[in-house]
């Protein structure tokens, strides 16, 4: 069924009124409303979309509270799902053929730190590993927003994108706190100072963790971050 502009606006208004502003729920409920309306029109051709929404669909969802409950549960599910994917992706670096690559990367950084004995190399690599995913996520986010502006679908965000972005930008504060912790420990603990400045294995471990973080976030972004909307 082809909706008129007025009917489209009625659905958009209704969904926005219910605070459904994420792509995932908006698209799914929009289709649900239209499918349901089509079906009811077969029985009652004079049925208006407005009364169908308010008199039939709203109670089916359990009223405004029912919608809010679905939104809340969906947000929780997405956050849990993205976290789970991040953990699974990180662990995949130690499985099968990937273990060989991981070992190769670790041995290379260990060798690099043992020969260069240069802390700037370590700090530079760690900062790069934290900044690369953040730069890419910002670029992808911009592409998504541009796509939203072009098609103006009625929603403003994508929950999955938002969660990935949160994990990626959190890295900045993590890096800041880590740096703060390291500099404090360097001053107060001679043992740690030695470990940090002289032990190539420890330095390689820190770089390895940063590379693992970078690999994980880039992989999750590649598969789950939406930049374009589906259009005809």
């Amino acid at each position, binding site marked *: 069924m082809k909706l008129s502009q007025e009917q489209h606006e009625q659905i958009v208004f209704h969904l926005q009124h219910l605070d459904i502003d994420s792509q995932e729920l908006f698209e799914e409920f929009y289709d649900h409303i239209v499918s349901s309306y089509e079906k009811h029109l077969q029985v009652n051709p004079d049925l208006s979309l407005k009364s169908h929404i308010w008199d039939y669909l709203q109670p089916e969802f359990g009223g405004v509270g029912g919608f809010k409950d679905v939104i809340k*549960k969906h947000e929780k599910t997405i956050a849990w799902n993205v976290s789970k994917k991040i953990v699974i992706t990180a662990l995949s670096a130690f499985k099968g053929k990937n273990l060989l690559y991981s070992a190769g990367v670790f041995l290379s950084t260990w060798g690099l730190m043992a020969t260069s004995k240069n802390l700037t190399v370590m700090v530079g690599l760690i900062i790069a590993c934290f900044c690369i995913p953040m730069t890419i996520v910002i670029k992808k986010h911009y592409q998504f927003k541009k796509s939203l502006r072009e098609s103006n679908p009625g929603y403003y965000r994508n929950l999955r994108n938002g969660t990935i972005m949160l994990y990626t930008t959190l890295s900045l504060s993590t890096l800041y706190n880590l740096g703060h912790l390291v500099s404090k420990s360097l001053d107060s603990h001679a043992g740690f100072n030695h470990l940090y400045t002289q032990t190539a294995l420890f330095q390689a471990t820190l770089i390895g963790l940063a590379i693992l973080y970078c690999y994980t976030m880039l992989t999750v972004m590649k598969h789950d971050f939406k930049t374009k909307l589906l259009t005809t």
Partner: protein
Amino acid sequence: MSSSKLLKGSLATIILKLLEENEKMYGYEITQRVKEITAGEFKITEGALYPSLHKLEAEGLLSTETQMVENRVRKYYSLTKEGNAEAHTKVAELEDFLVNLQKLLNPKLGLG
């Protein structure tokens, strides 16, 4: 007691079973299929259906794909390999449960 209360605990099994029989389905289609099969006796409310679908998807039992249908996006759900195995297990569990429930509600039939 309304059937919706009894249905609540079996909703995931019903969804998995329907998707086992149909390659892919969308939300509204699932509600209509249940209504159709049970001649309107069972009614899945949307407020219960969607959280259940999203949870099954997050657990990796369902996969999704989106398609443009008459100028709007439609989200289809289908079973993953794990979902297929889970559907068999859940249906078997529910059947066992119903047999035992029958024995409790109608002990004479159970002894016979």
